[in-house]
């Protein structure tokens, strides 16, 4: 989990580790299953060492040692969150790798590009199905449903590109 994300999720108020985890789970829904709790704590420790988080002891919380800690943003931490919020970033899909795979496979006769497209489509459709079902299972306007919609739309875009790949490679094959 990215440091800034963890930091920002703590910006609302000083919180226990388990409260942070619950907040993440609410926001991520079924995708939270992929979240690694240990990793969240590793990130918290790093942020603490970097002076972005301060730790207060607390008697409440679970049996886990780190769950007795209350994490609060330092002024440096608040500064970092403000910068991160203002930053423009967007996940980059790796289209070039797939594109070059098709070209290399065709050029060297390693595989039929259309077979590679079919295999890729199979995988994407399976994920689309899972994402769609998860989205439909969410209550309307839940935070997690919105995230799932983003995944569905991205998968759709990828599948549309595969369609274009299929058309193009079919054309090249019949043209040669």
């Amino acid at each position, binding site marked *: *989990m990215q440091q800034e994300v963890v930091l920002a999720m703590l910006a609302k108020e000083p919180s226990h580790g388990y409260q942070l985890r619950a907040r993440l789970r609410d926001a*991520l*829904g*079924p*995708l939270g*299953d*992929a*979240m690694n709790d240990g990793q969240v704590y590793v990130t918290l420790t790093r942020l603490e060492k970097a002076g972005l988080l301060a730790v207060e002891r607390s008697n409440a919380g679970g049996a886990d040692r780190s769950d007795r800690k209350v994490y609060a943003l330092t002024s440096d931490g608040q500064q970092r969150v403000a910068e991160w919020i203002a930053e423009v970033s967007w*996940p980059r899909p790796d289209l070039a790798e797939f594109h070059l795979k098709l070209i290399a496979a065709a050029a060297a006769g390693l595989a039929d590009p*259309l077979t590679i497209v*079919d295999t890729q*489509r*199979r995988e*994407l*459709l*399976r*994920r*689309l*199905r*899972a*994402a*769609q*079902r*998860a989205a*439909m299972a969410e209550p309307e306007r839940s935070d997690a449903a919105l*995230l*799932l919609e*983003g*995944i*569905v739309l*991205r*998968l*759709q875009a990828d*599948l*549309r590109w595969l*369609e274009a790949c*299929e*058309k193009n490679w*079919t054309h090249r094959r019949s043209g040669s």
Partner: protein
Amino acid sequence: MNEAAGMSVLRARGLRKEYGKGEGLVRAVDEVDLDVGAGETVAIMGPSGCGKSTLLHLLGGLDRPSGGAVLVNNRRIDNLSEKALARIRRTDVSYVFQSFHLMEELTALENVELSALLAGRSPRAARRRAEELLDQLGLADRARFLPSALSGGQRQRVAVARALSNEPSVVLADEPTGNLDSAATLDVLRLFEELHQSGQTLVVVTHDARIAATADRMFSMRDGAFVDETTLTGGTAGQLGALAGLEG
């Protein structure tokens, strides 16, 4: 898949459809085998002109094959008389079309009712069934509207209600979301998901990956033939983390 042939609601063996002769011969459907089990949703995807709509017409008895066999509930329909075939189309098989094909001069309720009447129900039973279906599909308050007064999504829902009114063994859908915007597509998507859960057997021909992704199995079609079969079940939401940037 579906080794128990007795469980197949819809079956095709060596199905062919050819147009033209000699040099100009076009094989629109080229030796297709298909088994659709009871309660299964099967999607057929492919580029336009690959023969998927022609295939759907052959499966539903709207068109006659050049060769091969189509069986609905283990009964061959490709060699039936026109009259017997028309009966099958009214009772065993239903269609949902891209452009809805509703009767414009009939209300939503009458459109749905008509198909139940044609399937041999009494007027009273047909009316009850039509009202029930429109209610289920969230269209109770639109029952007396003409199609022209309905949105695209609502029209397609009426068309689905009509397709269900004769309690068909299988519903065949041809690009059901082809004319719909994304909100209406979502409606149809939910509807198909519900039909699937209720055990309705469905075959969907589509461009739309979202509709295809409601299926249990998906076939890719090219040049009249199936080139790939995919089982779509078994994916989990947990695998989606990477797509949301949650891993690493």
